[in-house]
């Protein structure tokens, strides 16, 4: 036998057919934005010379450090509130026999799905200058509103807004926990409370840590609530500072870019911590995946008090929505009004006569659906290629798919504004669609990656051996098997895109209105009545579409996949 030349590894079929085009698309989408922001941050205002001046300014003027400090304080406070509320709810709902589970889940789902800007406006009706709270407790009239607009109030409001998200991150691990581990603690002599805090909490530590860092990442980049509440008392964070630098009469784009890069660096730290925590979560073998249902802790006398506690907490996450619902039916500007209200539908009819509102609603829905579709298709292919093949392209794809996670909405908005201001895309809905796609790619990757990992490789190999080309393998085997997860991802992205304010705040205008900025602008300039009615309409439309999506996914999984 003669020695023959060794076979050099070649690019897999999947990388060639799908990986390369996706790589080109992602590079084309992301690289110009990054380049633009970096150039802005490192050049002078006329763009004629490179300089570090923009960062030096932040460092030197004192305000910059204050803002950085505010951002950290805000992130810590709001994350703490969110995790605390979520944990208390999750432990009681998932590990004990307290009643009211369905009501809690329903409220948290509502809180989760409602855009932050709507949460914020609802809260200003509760705790703002003429808030309901101070009407009920008049002796707090003096300190109440100031407290509400301060760091403290902002953290409470933001924490309650992110609590449902934190809940949905930690609840699965708690639900999947093997109750025998808890029972062992009881047998060993631990009381109920000790068991819940030492064993149950201890066991869920990895997923808890992951939730902490992910929520921290979301909070540090968050814009809506600090803009609605914090700025009123001069509590400025990085994201709102970027906004105000751009919204000035003489915008300071260079300073804004520098601030947004600082923000991205803070985000990278949170993201690295998050990846470490999730890597650890995978190694934590004690949480068994089986759906144990038995073995909930019997609370006996504590059942009802616990149930009341979780229902009150969950209620707090939706109370601003309910207040807005109430407000939307109150005609006239006299609010809060407990006995003197006049009710009617006039606010809703005003929606139609307010310029841009209907258009923004339609735009948001259509763009959200399109973004969901595009992101899901793009990322399922990306995940498929990266799960099944390992080469230079897939490694790059992996990284490209994660980069937008650290690019805050406000940074991207600035980058889109500066990159496309002179292009035909400016002022068009397509620019907003592209922004949505870039922003939600990492989320799509998270959903689709785990779905593709769940498809055993042999199922695909069997199809290859049976004579199927890679495209056929994807279409006939992979796609149908991950379809249910794709629908979940699609619904998530649709809902989340409806929430967007910061991502589009600089690029959405009269020519391409979407709901987030419209609500924000309307709230700053005119009557709260229309804002309330419109918000209610947006929430309703969102949930109707999600409901329809859920129905379709049930039908699909039941009929097409059989």
């Amino acid at each position, binding site marked *: *036998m*003669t*020695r*023959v*030349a*060794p*076979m050099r*590894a*070649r690019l897999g*079929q999947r990388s060639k057919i799908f990986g390369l085009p996706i790589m080109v698309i992602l590079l084309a989408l992301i690289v110009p934005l990054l380049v633009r922001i970096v150039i802005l941050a490192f050049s002078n205002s006329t763009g004629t010379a490179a300089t570090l001046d923009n960062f030096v300014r932040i460092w030197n003027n004192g305000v910059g450090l204050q803002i950085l400090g505010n951002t950290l304080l805000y992130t810590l406070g709001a994350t703490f509130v969110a995790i605390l509320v979520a944990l208390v709810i999750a432990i009681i709902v998932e590990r004990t026999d307290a009643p009211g589970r369905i009501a809690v889940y329903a409220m948290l789902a509502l809180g989760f799905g409602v855009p932050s800007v709507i949460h914020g406006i609802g809260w200003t009706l509760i705790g703002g200058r003429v808030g309901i709270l101070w009407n009920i407790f008049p002796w707090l009239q003096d300190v109440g509103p100031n407290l509400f607009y301060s760091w403290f109030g902002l953290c409470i409001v933001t924490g309650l807004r992110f609590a449902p998200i934190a809940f949905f991150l930690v609840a699965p691990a708690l639900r999947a926990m093997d109750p025998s581990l808890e029972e062992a603690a009881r047998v060993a002599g631990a009381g109920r409370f000790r068991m819940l805090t030492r064993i149950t909490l201890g066991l869920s530590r990895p997923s808890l840590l992951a939730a902490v860092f992910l929520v921290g990442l979301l909070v540090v980049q968050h814009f809506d609530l600090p803009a609605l509440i914090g700025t009123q008392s001069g509590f400025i964070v990085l994201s709102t500072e970027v906004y105000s630098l751009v919204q000035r009469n003489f915008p300071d784009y260079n300073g804004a870019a520098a601030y947004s890069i600082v923000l991205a660096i803070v985000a990278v730290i949170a993201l690295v911590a998050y990846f470490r925590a999730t890597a650890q979560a995978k190694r934590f073998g004690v949480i068994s995946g089986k759906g144990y249902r038995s073995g909930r802790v019997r609370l006996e006398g504590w059942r009802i008090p616990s149930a009341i506690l979780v229902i009150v907490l969950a209620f707090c996450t939706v109370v601003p929505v309910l207040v807005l619902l109430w407000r939307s039916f109150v005609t006239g500007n006299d609010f809060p009004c407990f006995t003197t209200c006049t009710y009617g539908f006039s606010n809703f009819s005003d929606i139609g006569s307010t310029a841009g509102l209907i258009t923004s609603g339609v735009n948001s829905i259509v763009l959200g659906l399109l973004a969901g579709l595009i992101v899901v298709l793009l990322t399922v292919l990306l995940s498929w290629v990266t799960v099944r093949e390992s080469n230079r392209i897939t490694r790059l794809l992996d990284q490209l798919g994660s980069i937008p996670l650290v690019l805050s909405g406000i940074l991207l908005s600035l980058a889109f504004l500066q990159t496309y201001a002179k292009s035909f895309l400016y002022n068009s809905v397509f620019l907003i669609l592209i922004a949505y796609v870039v922003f939600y790619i990492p989320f799509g990757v998270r959903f689709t990656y785990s779905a593709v990992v769940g498809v*055993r490789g*042999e*199922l695909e*190999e*069997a*199809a*290859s*051996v*049976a*004579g*199927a*080309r890679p495209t*056929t393998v994807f279409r*006939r*085997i992979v796609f*149908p*098997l991950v379809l249910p997860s794709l629908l979940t991802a699609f619904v998530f992205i649709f809902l989340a895109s409806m929430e967007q304010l910061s991502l589009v705040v600089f690029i959405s205008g009269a020519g391409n209105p979407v709901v987030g900025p419209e609500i924000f602008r309307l709230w700053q300039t005119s009557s709260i009545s229309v804002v309330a009615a419109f918000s209610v309409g947006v929430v309703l439309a969102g949930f109707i579409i999600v409901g329809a999506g859920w129905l379709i996914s049930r039908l699909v999984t039941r009929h097409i*996949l*059989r």
Partner: protein
Amino acid sequence: MTAVLRVEGVDKRFHGADGGTHALHEIGFEVEEGEFFTLIGPSGCGKTTLLRSLAGLETPDAGLISIGDLSVFDSSRRLNMRPEKRPTGMVFQSYAIWPHMNVFENVAFPLRCRPGRFSQSDRKRVSEILEIVGLGGYERRNATDLSGGQQQRLALGRALVGEPRLLLLDEPLSNLDALLRVTMRAELKRLQREVGITTVYVTHDQSEALSLSDRIAVFKSGQLLQVGSPEEVYNRPAQPFVGEFLGGANAFDGSLVPSPSSIPTGVGTARSSGGSRVVGTLMGDALTPGDDVRIVVRPDAMQLSTGNSSGAPQFESDTIYGLAATINQCMFNGSFSEVMVDTADGFRLNVIVPGTPRLTLGDSVTLTGSAEQTYIYRTTGAVA
């Protein structure tokens, strides 16, 4: 007879942080038309890697593979035909039944992947195959609602429907329970004979290999040790490992000593490292006295006799030897017993004794073996 499968110099390394694995060492063999060819070896020896290389699911670093007249892999020409283009059918260890398709669609899939519309004759072909594998009438059944044995037939039907030149089976019986495994083994053999398809079968179960195969290839650590008919590999293992693996044979070390001139050709005398005399068939040429050797004898190739209190061999000749031993353990196994003994010269051997011998621990016994069923190998030539 023509070779349907030709494998030449197929070499494969996996690279890894731990220095990687040399999974296949220049493997070469041929499989004839209609033959049932089995790859056997211990876990991790590269059987699956080789089978997947035949299917095109794994790319060897070097070598040549052709199926029928078709060259499917040739590293010197940088030819690597994609799996979907190769005329192979494959049954996976996990069956890889597609859960979102029913029984009919699973089997129809290979035909649907062909150019042209799915025709009436394709439909007939699917029904025909389902009939052959005993799943007629199950067409509309959800594929995941089948029993283990039925899923196995389904996987087989799916592999056969496209009339491949070569059928590849990777431990298809290992997921079944013991009873079903025996039934399905017979069924598999019947089907293979009926369809007449050339088959490469991977297993690490020696009884499966011996009962099903026309020829067997024994692997160890990525190396092909011996190819031959079941009788050949069982009765004339080319290396100690083959005997140990296929017959569960005992092996111990010794050295060759001069034989009396009366001894038949091909037979030699050895002294175990503990000093006992053993005679056996010389495996390999130019074995000369003084060589270090490994002595292999299967558990069913020795007689065990009791009642000799002296412990000395009862009778010996040029081609018969005896070993004194004591009983260490005795396991009754139905029609036979597995007895573990410690020989006087310090080896632990397994012996199979028919029926239920009356043995107690510590009994002195004599083992009698024959040169015909005892094999002597040069130690240096063997693969460790």
